[in-house]
Every structure is written in C-alpha cells, then in structure tokens.
C-alpha cells in the first residue's frame, strides 16, 4: 500500500499536570481500509480523534496527511484536509430538515439553492446505500436517521477520512448491520475510516485492522484476520480476564413489586409510559432492554416516587409484614417511611445519584443524614461506611475526603452502587450501571448485582448491551416507545428477536432525545 491517508507520530496530550490522555501514540490509517480504535473508557480514544478533527491541539507529536506534515488548529483546518468526524452526541438543529442541516455552516459560493443541495444529498445516499429523506425534519427522526444525517454531512463536505465515535452505542442490532453495510461500501470507494468502539464482536466483523490504546498509551496494531476476542481483551486490559457472568437459578422467588397499567405523561404532554404492566420477583434479575429514551428512565423514576404518574398501580409486597403497599403518588420519603427498602442507582450518577463536589463521606449521608433528632450532622457512621465501601469494592481514591467528581467513572459507580446496596434493599433498581465503565469495573458491578440477587433482592437492571442482558438476566422486559413489547426468558434469548421487539409497536414512532 502506498502513502497513508493519515499518520500520527508520537502524539502526546496532557490535561493539567497529572492526567496524560495520550502518550506517544502512533497510528496509521490507509485509504480503502477500516481501522478500529479499541480501548476501554478513559483510554484516550476520543481525545486522540478530537486532535485529528481540530477540537484539541496536541502538546507533542506530528500529524501527516497523505505524507505531508500538517497542523490542525480548528475543525475548519480538519475540514480543509478532508477529515470528518461523527461525534457521539449529534450536533443538529431539530427544526431544520436533513438537507438544511447538511449545508449549515458551509461557506459556498453563489446562491443558496435547496434544490441542488437536495439533489446532491440524494446522490450521496444512493451512492452508499443510505436510507434518508433529505426533506425530513430532524425532530421527526429516529436516532439512527440522525446519525445518517451526521455522516452525510461530512461526506457532503468531501471528507476522505471519516472518524466515527462509538456509532453503534445508540443503535439496535439491525440498525448496526445497516450502518456496517454503508461503511463497507465507503471502504470500497477508497475512504479511510476510523471507528471508535469498545464492542469486540463489532471490531471483528467490520474492520481490517485494530489499533489498541490502554490508559492513553499505544499498545499496537493488529490485522483483524489474525486476532480474536481474548487476545484483543488482553491488549486492552493488559491482563487476561474471565469474561463469564455466573448466573444462578433464582431461589424461592416470590412477587415483590407489581406494576399494573402504568401511564406517564411528560411535562410537554408526550406520553412516556403507555399501559406498562409487569412483575418484579425476589431473587431474580429482571433486565429492561430498549432503545435509549423509550421510557426506561420514566419507569424507574415513577417506581422510586420521582415522577408524577397519570394512572396505574405500583404494589409492593412487603416481605416483613406480608402486607401489600401502594407506592403510587408517594414521595421517596413516604416510600421509605412505609418500610419499603427500595434502592435506586439512577442513570445520571453525578447529576442525581451523587453530588459531585461533595466528598465520599458526605455522599454516603445523602440517604441517611436525617436520622436522629439532633439538628447537626453525624459523620461518624457515614465515614465508616465510606471506608468500608472503599475497601470492599476496591474504590481507587486518594481518601474518603476526595470529592467524587475527581474519581473515574468506574469508581464513582462503585461508590453509588455501594451506598445503595448498603441500605440492605429488597428492591434494587439500576439504570445503565456499567455505562462508561471499563471491563474490570463492569464485571465487578455484575458480580455485585448477582450477589444481591442471591441474597433474595429483586433486581431491576436497565442495560444497553444486549449480549450482557442475555447473559446476566433471568427475564428481559423489552420496551419500545413507552410500551412493553414483550418479556423473554434470559436463558436462550435471541438477540435478533429482542432487537426487533425494541423497534416494533405501532410503526415504532420514536421519542427522540
């Protein structure tokens, strides 16, 4: 192969004095090739790509495009060198159509003519096999369509080097397959494609080469054909790890929480939960699968007493008294006063579950600070709890007095899950508890959930990785646009089937986010 489309030499980027996001990273991508950039969260993948696309400026090192050294100071420079990045979070204007979003910000000569734009967009979609109506408004689009707009946006600008930052995180299995087909066609067209991901099976099915980063350092590049999952994991983590989740059979399982015909309406008047009914049983893990924003958050929050409910019932079977309690319309405090031990690990860890600027001890108190009649705080017990969690869950922190926002994602999550488990719950709800966590931390969290299940806790687990849901959960409830589209047994569940259920229901009009 001739000259590399893009070559990075010894790129180093530091944040502050202590954090080295990238250290001496070398990377080469050729035309007509798909390169996967693999690494755990926090290994510096996105930082590296941001330097190519002009968002950050490297402290050291060189970048070559087609063999020429270049300096990329801004996204405009990147565009000049035909580099296009598709970010994880879309940057689109809701009330504009696809075509309008695509030309937005382009300084083209001549008169603005939406017809020629539309024609060009159409040509691109046909060339690569996209499925997109250029006149559709963004707010009417599904997540996958929005992503398509972002990709066409960079192609329209003539990008030859495409960078995709975790493009599959928001897609269903079917949409992912479609995206991969498009990417393969682009490869045939001679584009250089870099795809950031941490899903190993995607890496293996799509890319030609894999470059691995670990803790900001470049580990190496291998040919996809000559490697396998366990070798890649070892490169990513630095040691061999067991990727199995132990799933025990539920024991003495009884009904713990019954949800009947639950309906919720958002502040804007949009129906977020539509006649949802299911039962959560003790000693089992109930998984909830669905596209992001299908009502998972509203569901958990309405059970926790944080979301106003239109109609429906939430019935708790108290194992101590044997009685049943209605939780609907009760505040978190009232629920607690009923003797319901409900723990909730919300999706937004630092915005809801914890206070980022407070230290670990003060965060431990969040649930318990009211205890006692004194008007002053009692910090002794929270301190003991904080130290116990740090020790038992192996939280990496300078001390219990460190503000939690300074901890890494995995450690933040351990602090939060640790606190919620410490309350000895009978129901434990966790929303995306492993989002953004590295492999080791993820498995630590799975083990904690399994432990709770074995102790007879009714666990509700909202997840996004279908492989994990199938491996971990006893039953999986699939939710689509606020409706339950079915409940499947975790053992022997089929990923494709769940994927279809995630998008079905009345033509699947999606609630965008």
């Amino acid at each position, binding site marked *: 192969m001739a000259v590399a489309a893009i070559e990075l030499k010894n790129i180093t980027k530091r944040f*502050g004095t202590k954090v080295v996001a990238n250290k001496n990273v070398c990377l080469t991508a050729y035309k007509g090739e798909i390169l996967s950039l693999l690494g755990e969260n926090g290994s510096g993948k996105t930082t590296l790509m941001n330097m190519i696309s002009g968002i950050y400026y490297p402290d050291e090192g060189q970048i070559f495009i087609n063999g020429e050294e270049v300096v990329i100071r801004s996204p405009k420079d990147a565009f000049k060198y035909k580099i296009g990045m598709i970010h994880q979070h879309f940057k689109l204007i809701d009330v504009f159509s696809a075509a309008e979003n695509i030309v937005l910000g382009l300084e083209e000569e001549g008169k603005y003519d939406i017809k020629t734009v539309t024609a060009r967009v159409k040509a691109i979609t046909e060339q690569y096999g996209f499925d997109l109506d250029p006149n559709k408004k963004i707010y009417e689009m599904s997540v996958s369509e929005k992503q398509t707009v972002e990709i066409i946006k960079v192609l329209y600008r003539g990008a030859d080097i495409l960078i995709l930052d975790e493009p599959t995180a928001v897609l269903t299995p079917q949409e992912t397959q479609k995206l991969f087909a498009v990417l393969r066609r682009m490869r045939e067209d001679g584009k250089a494609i870099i795809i950031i991901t941490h899903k190993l099976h995607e890496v293996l099915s799509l890319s030609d080469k894999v470059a691995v980063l670990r803790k900001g350092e470049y580990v190496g590049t291998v040919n996809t054909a000559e490697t396998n999952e366990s070798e890649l994991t070892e490169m990513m983590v630095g040691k061999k790890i067991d990727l199995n989740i132990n799933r025990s059979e539920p024991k003495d399982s009884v009904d713990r929480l019954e949800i009947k015909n639950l309906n919720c309406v958002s502040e804007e008047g949009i129906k977020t939960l539509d006649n949802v009914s299911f039962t959560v049983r003790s000693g089992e893990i109930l998984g909830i699968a669905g596209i992001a924003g299908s009502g998972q958050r509203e569901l958990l929050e309405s059970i926790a007493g944080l979301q106003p409910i239109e109609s429906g019932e939430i019935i708790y079977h108290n194992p101590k008294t044997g009685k049943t309690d209605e939780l609907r319309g009760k505040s978190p405090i009232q629920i607690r006063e009923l003797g319901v031990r409900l723990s909730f690990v*919300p999706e937004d860890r630092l*915005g809801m579950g914890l*206070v980022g600027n*407070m230290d670990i001890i003060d965060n431990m108190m*969040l649930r318990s600070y009211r205890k006692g009649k004194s008007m002053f705080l009692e910090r002794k017990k929270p301190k003991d709890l904080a130290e116990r969690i740090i020790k038992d869950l192996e939280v990496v922190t300078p001390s219990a007095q460190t503000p939690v926002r300074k901890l890494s994602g995995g450690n933040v999550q351990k602090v939060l899950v640790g606190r919620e488990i410490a309350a000895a719950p009978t129901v434990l709800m966790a929303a995306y508890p492993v989002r953004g966590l590295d492999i080791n931390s993820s498995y630590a969290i799975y083990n904690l959930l399994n432990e709770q299940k074995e102790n007879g806790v009714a666990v509700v687990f909202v997840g996004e990785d279908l492989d994990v849901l199938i491996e971990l959960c006893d039953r999986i409830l699939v939710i689509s646009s606020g409706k339950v589209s079915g409940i499947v047994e975790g053992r022997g569940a089929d990923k494709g089937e769940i994927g279809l259920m995630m998008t079905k229901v009345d033509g699947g009009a999606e609630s965008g986010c």
Partner: protein
Amino acid sequence: MAVNEKHIKEPLFHITKRTDIPKLTAWGIRLIAVLAALIVSALVIVTITSYNPIEVYIKMFEGSFGSERKFFILLQNTAMLLCVSLAVTPAFKMKFWNLGAEGQVLVGGLSSAACMFYAKDSLPSWLLIIIMLVTSILSGVIWGVLPAVFKAIWRTNESLFTLMMNYVAMQLVSFFIMVWVPNGSSVMGVLNQRSECGWLPTIFGQKYALNIIIVAVLTVVMFVYLHFSKQGYEISVVGESENTARYVGINVKKVIIRTMVISGAICGLTGFLLVSGTNHTVSKELAGGMGFTAIMVSWLAKFEPSMMIFTSMFIVFLQKGAGEIATAFRLNESVSDILTGIIIFFIIGSEFFINYKINMRSKHKEAE
C-alpha cells in the same frame, strides 16, 4: 496544500484546563495579580496625576490604619459588609441569586427607624431595642421570602424579582422620610439624639464594639450552620443538583423558602445594626451598595464564611484607601474608583490563570 509547503506553523499558544493546582501556586498567582494591579495602578496614577505612586499607596494604607479611629471604622465597615455577605451566602450556596440584599437591609433599617420615630423615649431603651430588632428581622424576612415563594411555587426568576424589590424598598424609605421630616427636607436627622433611646449601648468605650461582636458571633454560627447542620447540608445538596435533592427526598421548595427566611433575616439584622448601632437615622443610602458588594465578597471567598472575613476586610480597605487618597491629594473621587476597579479586576482575572494554563509554542521543534 501545496506539496512544497514545508513551513509549518504551530499556533502561538493554546489554552488547557488545569485539573488540579497546588494551593501554594494558586496563592502565588493571586499575589502576582495584586502586584501587577499595583504596577498598572501606579502607571495610571503617574499619567493622570503625576503624583509619586508610592506616596499614594502609603496614603491608601493610612486610610485604614492611619489612626485608632480609622482602624475602628475599618472594623465597623468590615463587620457590616461581612454581615450582609453572611446573609447572601446560604442563598448563593443554594444557587438562589439573591440580588436583593440591598433592599432587605433597607427595609430592616426603615423598620428600626420607624420604631424609634414613633416610640421616641416612651419606652425603656432595652425594650425599644428588642422591638426594633424583631421588626427589622421580620421586615427583612418578608422582603427575602416573597421572591423565594414565587420561585418555589411558580419558578419565577429570583434575580429579577429580588432586584426589583430593592427599588420598592428605596421608594418606601423616600416616602417615609417625606412623611416624617417636616418642611420638605429629604434628609432625616439623628433620631432620639438626647435620650439615646433605642441606641445600641457603647461597650469597652467603643461605639461600634457591640456591632463587631455580634457579627463575629454570627460568622461562627453561619460557619457551623453551613458545615455541620442538617439544614446546611440540604442547602449544599439543593445548590449542587436539584435532581439529587429530589432523589433523596429533600423538599426543595421548603429548603428554598427556609433559606431565604434566614438570608432575609440576617439582612434585616444588618439594617437594625446600621440604624440602632451606627447611624441612628435612615436614608436611601443606608445600605450604600453593600447588598451588591457583598455578592463579590461571598464569591471571592467561594462562599466560605471564614474566608469572607478577609475578603470583606480587603474590599473595605480598598474603599477606605481610595477615599483617603481622594481627599489627601484632592483628586476626583473617580480616580480612586479607577484604582479600586483595577485591583479588583486583576484579582478576579487571576482566577482564569488558576483554572487554565497557557501553553506557549515550544521553541525547539524536532526536525523531521
């Protein structure tokens, strides 16, 4: 992208965020900022007045430390400013932008003055003082809690609401002065001059000693309240994230209203101290902008009551110094305002360099 374009230019500098900075470096940066401010101020002094800047600075220092009396005035003014700052701090910690401290102080002072005006010397002084204290605090509370209730229930914007309440308070003061003072004078004389009824007593032979002691005690109480009480903890949680507060079952509305009761009460107390302990009269300028200066005091101290002792004293020191040089060198008041402005600009500006680092272009670029 010419092929022979060999000359590659790195940008002159780029800015990165600091993740953590040693305390010593941070204070070093602040010190450099103060020195830079003094140098710039010196240049300004020389160009527009041609006085020797060193002499000017010495005079400035004398404004606060020139005599025992000046020193006590420094302490008294610091105490009053600190008191207002203590009032706004719990609200600010809760991210409730109380810009109405000025008005809350004013209505507090007005209430005290009204008590003195109507009671004259018909009551024993101690009883009158208690009545004044209670009415001042109550009126401060009303001024503070009104925007809080609207914010808690209807989510109105508290900054605008509190700000507008200032003007209502000012007009009320003007109105009552017109009613109280005969023959149309807009200045109200000292109340109960002869009987000194309703005047805070002089202790240790110092007129303002009681004021200073009250504020000192209040500082300690506020420190303990914010750091060690359950209510203080709730304020921090609500301020950091209302979602977290809801999640753990804190009644956010109640906390907002309760905190503004405290904020308004302390403002009312300041009004009382100003009337009963200091001026013994009321005017529209009673608060003298302290309600706004207090915001700066509180921010500079990062809402930490113990640090606010220093920031409030520093600001008062600058004000006194500016006043002193204005009289000593017969300068326009504006010149001293310019100097104060320059110094504060540099101090606030230094925060940028504490949070961000500027990386200059490296001189030795590796040859390819």
